[in-house]
């Protein structure tokens, strides 16, 4: 493909963006040519999503120039971005479940006619679906009846329908099966052959190497390198993403290898993503489920906490079999759960810090149905002190920063009598650096007290800071289990992005 000679479709020049004191993107430059498939790589927090958001009109840059087809083009809204010819396929699927495929394909399109001529809409839908390899999908079917992969393809089809000059794919394959990924790639290739520039954001380096012509690597908001994929191999790419590997001090002594697992999991199946999983967590051990979005780690955590009605398999806590599917049962068995969405599934934002900290243990504090203040006070005080928020005990949680909110959420799980295992899903999502260290300390001290910890994370730093044992997952399967001291970031990234049965191994 003669990408080098054609004019530029997109040009980022010296773009900067800061969120408060945090520099998300510094002096970033990028060019895309028509027909080019360009990968954007980097770890969580490297600045990829800021680039995507700026391009899609969701965020405005502080400095720098953006040109599309040679003209100054700064989108102030998603609609405006769409008019500029930018189409975004987000990692979170933004289709409306209750509508049909055809309706979803029409939705939000600026040029949809007032009259809804169903036949025309369907034939247009068929055209678009054909382009992503969904030839046999009936456009009248509701999206709710589609498999995840089909949804992703429909979403790409919608982006294609906008006749976009620039197509952004943000982690489009995270939730897809092999065959589905093949369809997506075919679709992307055919779009790019038509002259669309594609920005492909992915962690999956195998896919990057296979699909993309060129790649830009970001680290800590800085551009590291832009190169043709032919100039690099995967090991180099990983090296670029990681940079110089920092020395990691061993912050705590992991528990002895021996000892019976306090929690044993055998054949845990969670349709549709996790076919079957075995895992042990010993008392005092911190186990990371490391993997990219959609690898199944979150599903495992949620299923253990009783939040999946379709999970099956054998889970034993201290030898006693746990009935899956009920949060109450899981809680009673000593499994304490921290959801990755503290606002909607964790905190009672309008209530005070103290109220939130004792919310789940009112039972122990009551007698005859009445809550005894003399039992509440010391516990709330101690917990608030342990998370460093003693002074704000009476403040509403909504008034706290994200980091402090997360501490309150975590604090609720601590020091509960009978807790055997902490189940943490992305324990530091949306938390600043200081808060993150505090939270990690809290988790460690809980482990030191003999509680097992199982956490899901997509962030390397967190995984290596916190875990004693690292379980890497890919596509719902465990890739490897290793002591932190016996593995390396390089290896873990390799495992997270490239399972033994990854596409490249096949290719």
């Amino acid at each position, binding site marked *: 493909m003669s990408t080098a000679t054609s004019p530029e479709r997109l040009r980022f020049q010296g773009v900067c963006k800061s969120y408060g004191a945090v520099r998300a993107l510094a002096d970033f430059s990028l060019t895309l040519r028509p027909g080019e498939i360009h990968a954007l790589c980097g770890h969580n927090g490297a600045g990829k999503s800021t680039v995507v958001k700026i391009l899609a009109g969701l965020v405005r840059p502080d400095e720098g120039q953006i040109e599309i087809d040679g003209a100054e083009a700064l989108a102030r809204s998603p609609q405006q971005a769409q008019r500029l010819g930018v189409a975004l396929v987000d990692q979170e699927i933004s289709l409306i479940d209750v509508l049909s495929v055809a309706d979803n394909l029409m939705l939000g399109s600026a040029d949809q006619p007032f009259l809804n001529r169903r036949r025309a809409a369907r034939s247009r839908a068929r055209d678009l679906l054909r382009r992503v390899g969904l030839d046999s999908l009936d456009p009248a079917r509701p999206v709710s009846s589609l498999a995840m992969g089909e949804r992703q393809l429909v979403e790409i089809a919608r982006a294609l329908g906008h006749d976009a000059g620039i197509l952004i794919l943000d982690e489009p394959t995270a939730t897809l099966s092999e065959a589905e990924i093949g369809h997506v790639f075919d679709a992307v290739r055919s779009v790019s052959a038509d002259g669309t520039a594609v920005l492909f954001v992915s962690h999956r380096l195998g896919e990057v190497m296979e699909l993309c012509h060129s790649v830009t690597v970001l680290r800590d908001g800085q551009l590291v390198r832009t190169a043709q994929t032919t100039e690099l191999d995967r090991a180099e790419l990983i090296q670029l993403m990681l940079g110089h590997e920092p020395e990691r001090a061993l912050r705590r002594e992991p528990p002895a290898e021996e000892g019976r697992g306090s929690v044993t999991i055998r054949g845990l199946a969670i349709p549709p993503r996790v076919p079957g999983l075995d895992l042990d967590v010993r008392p005092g051990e911190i186990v990371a489920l490391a993997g990219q979005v959609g690898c199944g780690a979150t599903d495992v955590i949620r299923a253990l906490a009783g*939040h999946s009605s379709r999970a099956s398999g054998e889970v034993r806590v201290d030898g006693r079999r746990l009935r899956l599917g009920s949060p109450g049962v899981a809680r009673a068995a000593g499994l304490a759960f921290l959801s990755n969405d503290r606002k909607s599934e964790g905190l*009672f934002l309008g209530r005070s810090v103290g*109220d939130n900290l004792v*919310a789940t243990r009112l039972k122990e504090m*009551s007698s005859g149905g009445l809550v005894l203040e003399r039992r509440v006070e010391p516990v709330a005080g101690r917990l608030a002190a342990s998370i460093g928020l003693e002074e704000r005990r*009476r403040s509403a949680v909504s008034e706290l920063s994200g980091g402090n909110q997360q501490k309150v959420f975590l604090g609720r799980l601590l020091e509960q009598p009978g807790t055997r295992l902490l189940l943490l899903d992305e324990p530091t999502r949306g938390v600043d650096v200081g808060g993150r260290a505090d939270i990690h300390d809290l988790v460690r001290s809980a482990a030191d007290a003999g509680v097992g910890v199982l956490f899901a994370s997509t962030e390397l730093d967190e995984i290596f800071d916190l875990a004693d044992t690292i379980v890497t997952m890919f596509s719902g399967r465990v890739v490897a289990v290793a002591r932190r001291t016996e593995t390396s970031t390089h290896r873990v990234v390799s495992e997270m992005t490239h399972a033994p049965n990854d596409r490249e191994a096949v290719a």
Partner: protein
Amino acid sequence: MSATEHAVMGPGVSRSPLERLSRGDLALLLGAVVVFGVLVYGAVSTQGFLSYGNFKAILASMGIIGIVAVGMSCITISGNLVSVTLGTTVVVTTMLFLAALTFGPVAAIVLTILAGAAVCALQGFLIGGFRANPIIVTIAFGTLQLGLAQRLTNQSTVYPPHDASFRFLAGTVFGLPLSIFVLIAITLALEFWLRRSRLGRESYLVGENLRAARASALRVTPVAVAAFALAGACAAVAGVLLGASQGNATLLTSETYTFQAIAAVLVGGIAITGGKGAIYRTVLGALFIAVVSDMLLLRGYSTGVQVLVRGLVVLAAVVIVQLLAKERA
């Protein structure tokens, strides 16, 4: 309107009002001053308003509505919106009470309250247990209660047995109607329940964030059942007092209680989305509405105008509460 003034502060959240006076708070303060001014002007200029007799009349008119509204607040706080047919329960329990007087007043009171609690607890079970929509479930049960009552009474007026002694319930204590004292007692009891009991505390949490409550394995269904049962019990108490004061019962007047009670809850500044507010605020809301209605009445405005003003007050309260919540976020 001190009711909405407190809207910013739920129980357990305290802060010095002066140190955090935002623009929204100032606007609210200004609004409160205006409302207060209008009330004072109305009180002074309305003939017959400032009298002991009228004071008693206001209290008498808010007693029964207040009791229903206080029960309604439990439903709202626990995150189950409102019951749009609690008034039907009031009327039906009035009938039940009068009919049950054959067993003596004490037995009749107990039976009535149990029945009111039970019929609402069932609604709470369907709502909490299956997340069925509260509005529609309560509409359905209102219809069922009405149908059942029509079946049992043949649509005629229910009279108590001739020898029944129950009029003492319609009497006065220290010159004030008994219903006011009952209202105060129930308010105190429910405040205690909400703040001190485990279920009460959990109902604030469930009301605040249902998903979080489920994720933290709080007792979602028992909370809904309890909230509705308490509301039903309050409605039944109102029914008993109504029966005592009327001495008969028909099915003619049921919605008025429901909507006056809801108005009191909303005017009291309790967010309809749940988790916030306190019972006493509903009483203030009921008082506010009673005072305004009384003024309009004394100034010769018709029932229609009173209802109209009540509706506008509810709309204003809803908007103000939301603006405050936004200001806080």
